[in-house]
């Protein structure tokens, strides 16, 4: 390094000294105080052509002293000519303002125009890029800033997975979210959320107020992080403005669905010194809104039949708060070198109440109905920043250096004990009515004949005679739809449990209470990057760079339980003995399905009372903390893990314009990954266990000691005796792999408007941490699921071929079409099994590499056009639309047929109709979105066959899990009444199509969730 530095300095000196009679021009191309990137800046007499950078800045070096004419060209704007006289080393031109086309000079700034301008900018960045990508400016929010995913949804080929109606994960071309990377200023951010099953950041925490623009890359270039098979989305945070700015936005709206107001406050301040060298910005925003969701879920009990174990009705009401802060500083040196700092923080709080009514056809306690009071305050905190410099070493050499640090963490807030009590978590309090005799079940005998239940729940034949023949081996199951051989199965939208006895509020008694505990964090303490670029002439750009990222993370799930203390109180603790009231259904439950459960809801404890329930019952409840005496202690052994990952990446690439029409990017990226994970493993082999006593040793914590070697016998009272001890050992998973990623892009400019692009790239997907976790499986307590990591899992590699044709039209119009194909080796997929261990019915999930390569092929068409070539009313309309079609095939081991790739929809559509009247300040938008149905999970339950081998129970898709296709329609409009005041109305989810997950066939719902129509209206003040 030492010697390199000297060389750089040397080169720098030569450049400075050798051409003393030349000067440098610096400037910035702007429109309405917003910078315009990729503007062609040309001095025709010298045959010099440069482009402005993303911030509109440009520099032309080595210009001989004298008078020159500079031409600024950018489609959609008027060509501008400026004459300059070079007399000094550096000529600062300051801001060069371009005007919109058609000779119209704009004398006022209005927001609708800005928005349009943003699209123009986005379009041209896209046009100028040599790789296949789309760019969109976030612009100034018309609407409340939900999170970055909401902006992303407007972009072509991008789909969003939602949680409670708000975007959480994104994917390019509908590919599985794990295949995609979300980047902030080029870095993949650490991930920490409630589930933390992925490396893909949940957007909950990322407010769109932080963002400047979003770039979606479909085919990677070597200077980007290579673990993105599907695509990459890069969010660039806001940078300092060019002059003093102070903006305060106050937005106040009303959400009809939750029947609650919403608030959005944001503050932006930035400035730049007179010499334009030092700029800063500081911004912050706070957004608060409420939601209400109706949902029902069905749990199927077996891999052998389609019987229903449970119907669950969920009424969610919640409040979400997003707070974000942003700071940026930059300083530009004489030679246009720059140093900068960018910092951001995001905080997300989801205070969610969930009232569940569960009809349990089959649980250990027989058939019951239970009422669950759930309250959690889940919160995430993301913060970090980067410090870097862009050095102009000479006119030909540039060096960018960057150091970044990011941290992300998740925890449950102060429920139920407040403060930092370590028992705080996801609180569940359950009341139950026992001995329910469900009469809506059928009996199936061993020959497949069906019998209905009589008024006592006994099987009867057609004549009403009770069937008592024991040799029929009857099975009683709740079957719906066509599954029910009697032909009277419930329809999916009206599954009605029918009990012999009436449900009576007074019969519900306390069953148990618990908090789920969750501590999750991940941070990247070191992200260091350098990019060295060498431009020997204007046609060629060589880039060489490297990146080091250290990542560390930790996750621990646990449980704290409370049970009735029979030493104190043996009577039932009835719900109706406490403050309770009818469930607030916000005007109805599942109105979309004509309220099938109207009038059937039981009262629940008042919120204020259920929050303090555990405390108020005192020693009537017995605490059962998670320690070796807890009955589930060994089930949680795998629920804690930590990891460290180091990635060392390097790349070499060239961007070469072979001619004015043909250019290419070629290069290679190598990433070396070192992963170490630590987790606990339960040694439960035949000879590993021992009979044990458990002690709470003063000052020594909990100890499990073998009974036949008990050092505390006679000294301490065991908190549990004659239990079983297992050795728990820490295991480590070490993986190291080198990923070699060649990439090639060709671009052919047939004309100014028509561009062909071809990409051939290799990319990969690192396994998620949960997927390679060693040791015992992770328990998901509430859903009775185990997640077994596979330390032998390999990363998946993809060869990607992309071909695109783009036709650019004036004023941000674009038509593009393309085809793409991917060949993925070692594709990582999830398996679900329910019966590996015959002792349980719990679902195990694990991860496998596909044995054979899988193929994915698709085609896409995008169109964006404003009808400004028309006259009158019609010219204010615009259309943005795109369609993606994907075909994929995969064979799951043991299946005799191929299936589509899990999580990959076949068909995607986005269509937006815009109406923009700049003069009157109107902006109206109607957006439709269609996401085709797709396979979610493959049921790979296997059982020992007669030949002794494991065989799949179901060589069909009847037990697989699918997502149904979904249409959505959103409407928004804003009207600028005064310069400082805007009215807006937003009506999203107009169709209110449910999230619909089903088993095998659509008549077998697993999860059906309605978010309701969200109507927000309000005022926005721009101060």
């Amino acid at each position, binding site marked *: 390094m030492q010697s390199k530095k000297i060389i750089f300095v040397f080169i720098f000196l030569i450049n400075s000294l050798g051409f003393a009679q030349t000067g440098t021009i610096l400037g910035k191309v702007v429109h309405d105080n917003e910078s315009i990137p990729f503007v062609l800046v040309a001095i025709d007499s010298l045959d010099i052509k440069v482009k402005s950078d993303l911030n509109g800045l440009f520099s032309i070096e080595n210009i001989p002293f004298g008078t020159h004419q500079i031409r600024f060209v950018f489609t959609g704007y008027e060509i501008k000519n400026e004459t300059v006289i070079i007399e000094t080393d550096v000529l600062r031109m300051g801001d060069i303002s371009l005007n919109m086309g058609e000779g119209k000079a704009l004398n006022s700034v209005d927001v609708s125009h800005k928005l349009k301008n943003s699209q123009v900018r986005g379009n041209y960045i896209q046009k100028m890029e040599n790789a296949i990508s789309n760019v969109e400016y976030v612009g100034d929010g018309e609407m409340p800033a939900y999170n970055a995913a909401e902006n992303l949804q407007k972009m072509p080929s991008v789909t969003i997975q939602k949680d409670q109606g708000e975007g959480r994960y994104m994917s390019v071309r509908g590919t599985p979210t794990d295949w995609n990377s979300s980047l902030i200023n080029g870095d993949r951010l650490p991930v920490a959320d409630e589930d933390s099953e992925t490396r893909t950041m949940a957007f909950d925490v990322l407010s769109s107020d932080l963002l400047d623009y979003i770039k979606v890359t479909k085919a990677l270039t070597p200077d980007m992080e290579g673990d993105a098979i599907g695509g990459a989305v890069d969010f660039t945070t806001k940078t300092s403005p060019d002059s003093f700015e102070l903006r305060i936005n106050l937005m106040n709206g009303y959400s009809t669905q939750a029947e609650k107001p919403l608030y959005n406050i944001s503050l932006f301040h930035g400035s730049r010194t007179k010499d334009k060298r030092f700029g800063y910005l500081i911004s912050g925003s706070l957004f608060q809104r409420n939601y209400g969701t109706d949902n029902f879920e069905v749990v199927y009990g077996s891999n052998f039949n389609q019987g229903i174990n449970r119907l669950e009705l969920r009424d969610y009401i919640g409040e979400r708060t997003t707070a974000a802060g942003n700071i940026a500083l930059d300083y530009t040196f004489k030679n246009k070198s720059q140093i900068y700092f960018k910092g951001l923080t995001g905080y997300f709080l989801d205070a969610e109440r969930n009232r569940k009514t569960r009809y349990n056809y089959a649980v250990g306690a027989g058939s019951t109905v239970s009422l669950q009071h759930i309250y959690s305050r889940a919160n995430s905190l993301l913060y970090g920043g980067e410090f870097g410099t862009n050095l102009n070493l000479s006119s030909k050499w540039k060096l960018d250096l960057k150091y970044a640090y990011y941290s992300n963490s998740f925890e449950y807030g102060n429920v139920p004990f407040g403060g930092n009590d370590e028992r705080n978590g996801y609180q569940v309090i359950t009341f139950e009515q026992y001995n329910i005799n469900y009469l809506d079940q059928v009996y199936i005998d061993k020959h497949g004949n069906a019998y209905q239940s009589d008024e006592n729940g006994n099987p009867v034949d057609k004549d009403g005679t009770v069937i008592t023949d024991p040799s029929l081996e009857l099975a009683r199951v709740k079957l719906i739809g066509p599954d029910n051989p009697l032909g009277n199965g419930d329809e999916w939208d009206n599954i009605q449990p029918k009990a012999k006895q009436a449900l009576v509020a007074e019969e519900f008694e306390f069953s148990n209470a618990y908090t789920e505990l969750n501590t999750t964090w991940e941070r990247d303490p070191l992200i260091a990057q350098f990019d060295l670029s060498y431009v020997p002439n204007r046609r060629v750009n060589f880039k060489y760079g490297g990146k080091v990222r250290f990542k560390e993370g930790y996750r621990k799930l646990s449980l704290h339980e409370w049970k*009735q203390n029979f030493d104190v109180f043996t009577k039932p603790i009835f719900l109706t003995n406490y403050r309770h009231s009818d469930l607030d259904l916000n005007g109805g439950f599942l109105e979309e399905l004509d309220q099938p459960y109207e009038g059937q809801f039981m009262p629940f404890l008042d919120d204020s009372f259920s929050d303090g329930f555990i405390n108020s019952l005192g020693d009537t409840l017995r605490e059962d903390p998670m320690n070796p005496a807890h009955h589930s202690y060994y089930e949680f052994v795998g629920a804690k893990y930590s990891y460290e990952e180091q990635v060392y990446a390097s790349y070499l690439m060239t961007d070469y314009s072979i001619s004015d029409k043909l250019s290419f990017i070629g290069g290679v990226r190598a990433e070396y990954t070192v992963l170490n994970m630590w987790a606990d493993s339960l040694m439960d082999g035949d000879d590993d266990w021992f009979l044990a006593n458990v002690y709470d040793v003063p000052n020594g914590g909990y100890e499990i000691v073998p009974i036949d070697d008990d050092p505390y016998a006679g000294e301490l009272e065991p908190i549990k005796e004659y239990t079983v001890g297992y050795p728990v050992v820490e295991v480590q998973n070490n993986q190291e792999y080198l990923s070699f990623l060649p990439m090639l892009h060709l671009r052919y400019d047939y004309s100014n408007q028509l561009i062909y692009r071809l990409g051939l790239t290799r990319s990969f997907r690192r396994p998620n941490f949960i997927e390679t976790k060693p040791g015992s499986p992770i328990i998901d307590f509430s859903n009775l699921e185990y997640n077994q990591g596979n330390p032998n899992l390999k990363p998946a590699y993809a060869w990607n071929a992309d071909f695109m044709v783009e036709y650019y039209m004036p004023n941000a119009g674009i038509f593009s079409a393309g085809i793409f194909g991917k060949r993925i080796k070692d594709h990582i997929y999830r398996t679900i099994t329910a019966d590996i261990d015959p002792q349980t019915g719990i679902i195990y999930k694990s991860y496998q590499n596909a044995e054979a390569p899988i193929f994915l092929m698709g085609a896409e068409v995008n169109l964006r056009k404003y009808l400004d070539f028309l006259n009158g009313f019609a010219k204010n309309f615009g259309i943005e639309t795109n369609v993606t079609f994907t075909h994929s095939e995969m064979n799951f081991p043991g299946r005799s047929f191929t299936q589509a790739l899990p999580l990959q929809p076949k068909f995607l559509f986005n269509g937006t109709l815009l109406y923009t009247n700049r003069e009157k300040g109107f902006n109206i938008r109607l957006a439709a979105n269609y996401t085709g149905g797709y396979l979610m999970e493959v049921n790979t339950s296997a059982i020992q066959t007669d030949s002794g081998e494991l065989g799949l129970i179901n060589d069909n898709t009847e037990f697989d899990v699918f997502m149904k296709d979904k249409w959505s329609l959103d409407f928004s409009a804003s009207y600028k009444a005064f310069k400082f005041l805007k009215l807006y109305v937003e009506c999203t989810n107009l169709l209110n199509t449910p999230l619909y997950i089903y088993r095998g066939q659509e008549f077998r719902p697993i999860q059906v969730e309605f978010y309701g129509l969200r109507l927000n209206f309000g005022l926005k003040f721009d101060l």
Partner: protein
Amino acid sequence: MKTKMKLKSIGKIKTLLVASCLVSMGSIYAQDEHDEYKMLFIGIDGVRSDALKQLMDDDLVPNMEALFATGTYTFDSWHLGITSSGPSWSDMLTGVWENKHNVTSNSYTGSDYDTYPYFPTRVKECRPNAKAVQVTSWSPMSDNVYNDGWDNKLIPPTDDACALAAQSQLIDPALDILFVHFDDVDAAGHGNGFNPAIPAYMNAITYVDTKVGQVIDALYARTNFANEKWVIMLTTDHGGTGTSHGGNSDTERHIWWVANGYGIPSMEITGADPGSYRFGDAPDPELIQTTPVLTDIAVTAIDHLVPGTDCEESHKADWALDGKSWLDEGSLYVEGNNFDNIIDVNIFPNPNNGVFDVVVNLTQGENYQVILTDLAGKTVFEKELEYFDGYSKLKVDLQQFENGVYLMSVKSGDKIITKKVVKH
């Protein structure tokens, strides 16, 4: 998840032996009259009768089969209440039905064990120094029960651990009553389905049989076993259907038990369905006196453990126990059925109005002779059946005969079985 363990380590048992011997040598236990009378009660949660029969036919549950072969057993034990574990085990361990002990669900709330305690509490009224221990992995049965008479309640986390804990208890010479409860068959039923057609459920029963064997071997290995008067009782609490139980169907209510040991003859007891408290009508009071039911377990246990004492006499009047003892003389046994030559015959419905079906659970057809006699020994029905198999049904009509109890014998070669049929 319940982690499965298998017992292979003999060394582990040896160290246990040493440890336990050391403990017991330290205290010379007090003695009561009758303290040679002892009971091992093994309960397996959720084993359907037909599933157990099928596994015994296939010789897949040798340890349980051995108890049946030389003991008194029934496949006609009827559940008269809620077929959930909490109420069921309470019926068996208190000797009274749920209208008295008040346990109606697995929550155990509202219980009245103060008035109707577990049978060890009663035994201790005559044998105050009796030592009783319970071993179960199902914690509510330990945490939520009181006045149960257990000197120690162990809650090992798995069936494997329960078996081992039971073994360690059986080393203790002072032990008088041991209740071991195995829960994993029920778990397999809930997870996969309670049905002989579901391998996961059947595997769970074959597996628990090895645990039963382990416990019984430990019993036979007691140092003073030859001088002790042990009775082993083995039963289930309810059957199941689909992935649940708790209901009123016959597959949930119609269960089995077996007793083996000191003074227990080799025979089968049969009986007709007395009805259930859950049907609204009270069960038939006469049939309750003749048919095996759950509450008989505690009363039979008390009878064995305190023979000829006040305790044995007082259960009806003072303790208001509902069950009956099968050690009492004069009960309406059906003697003579030989387990080795058993024919699996089912009669349904039973009781009936005189019209009922007879089915034989056999895949291959055989020739049978069916003879029905009244209690006086007079033949009222006789029929030869050729190639009768599991798909065949014999319809019998006794409508012209008087109501009452009849004995039906089914013979094939040297195999014979006799069952009681009740005509209302």
